[in-house]
């Protein structure tokens, strides 16, 4: 009885193996080809993860040297920067209910929103492509992209917004994610003891 069962088991295993073998072989060859193609593509584009990591470290150091300590902490803790919008100030000062701000994410659109209500206003799609592609890519390191947006926004908000492609919220970034980030930011600032009034510019009527 045991011998018959054993023989049956062996026959079953052999049959299953014979059935599975072609599929397994095709899968393995496919994986091998994909792996080889990925390596070839990486070599052709000159992508080097170590170099990219070092580039990002340099970019983070540069960003840190440019922004305020509070903003740097925000970036390292939350992964984005908030910049207060100032276009209203140019036309006679901010008016009650008109204050707005931007969230800057690396290599994602800038999101404009109303801090008071959390209402999302727009997405501004903007990039800083280096067409010389020194290492095969036109993309700046993440933190350089954030710094470029921060510098352009704080220096000439109107110009940057003019260059960007404007979309309604949700085109590129999930609005729920942005709302979560706004809530995270509020909690983070509460933990750090930052009062809302401190974030408002001097002379802003809402800060009075």
């Amino acid at each position: 009885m045991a011998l018959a069962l054993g023989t049956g088991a062996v026959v079953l295993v052999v049959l299953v193996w014979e059935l599975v073998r072609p599929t397994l072989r095709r899968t393995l060859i496919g994986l091998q080809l994909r792996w080889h193609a990925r390596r070839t593509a990486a070599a052709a584009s000159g992508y080097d993860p170590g170099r990219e990591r070092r580039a990002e470290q340099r970019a983070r150091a540069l960003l840190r040297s440019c922004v305020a300590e509070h903003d740097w902490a925000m970036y390292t803790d939350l992964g984005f920067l908030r910049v207060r919008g100032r276009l209203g100030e140019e036309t006679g000062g901010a008016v009650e209910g008109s204050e707005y701000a931007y969230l800057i994410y690396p290599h994602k659109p800038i999101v404009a929103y109303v801090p008071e209500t959390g209402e999302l206003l727009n997405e501004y799609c903007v990039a800083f492509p280096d067409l010389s592609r020194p290492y095969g890519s036109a993309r700046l390191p993440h933190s350089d992209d954030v710094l470029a947006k921060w510098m352009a926004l704080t220096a000439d908000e109107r110009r940057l917004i003019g260059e960007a492609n404007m979309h309604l919220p949700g085109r590129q970034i999930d609005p729920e994610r942005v709302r979560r980030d706004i809530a995270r930011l509020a909690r983070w600032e509460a933990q750090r003891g930052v009062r809302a009034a401190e974030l408002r510019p001097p002379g802003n009527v809402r800060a009075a």
Partner: protein
Amino acid sequence: MKLLRMKPGHGEIVLAEGDIEVPEQERALIEAFRRELDEGMWAAVPTETQTGRREAELVKSFAEVPRDAERVIFFPRAAGGCGAEPA
């Protein structure tokens, strides 16, 4: 003063460095500055206001760079972006 340029795959590189009070070094800085602008770069000077707020100033010529600026950062000009990839 240092002229820095953001570069993909590298981070910033130092394009030129010198004392703007020394005519020869100032000339070298101006040449490097113009070269970057000719290549379509934007130039920004990080600043700090009297109230301590950090911001930046975009400059279009070397004459606009504050004499006491420690660095000018060049970066590719902005272009309407975002491909079709949703986040």
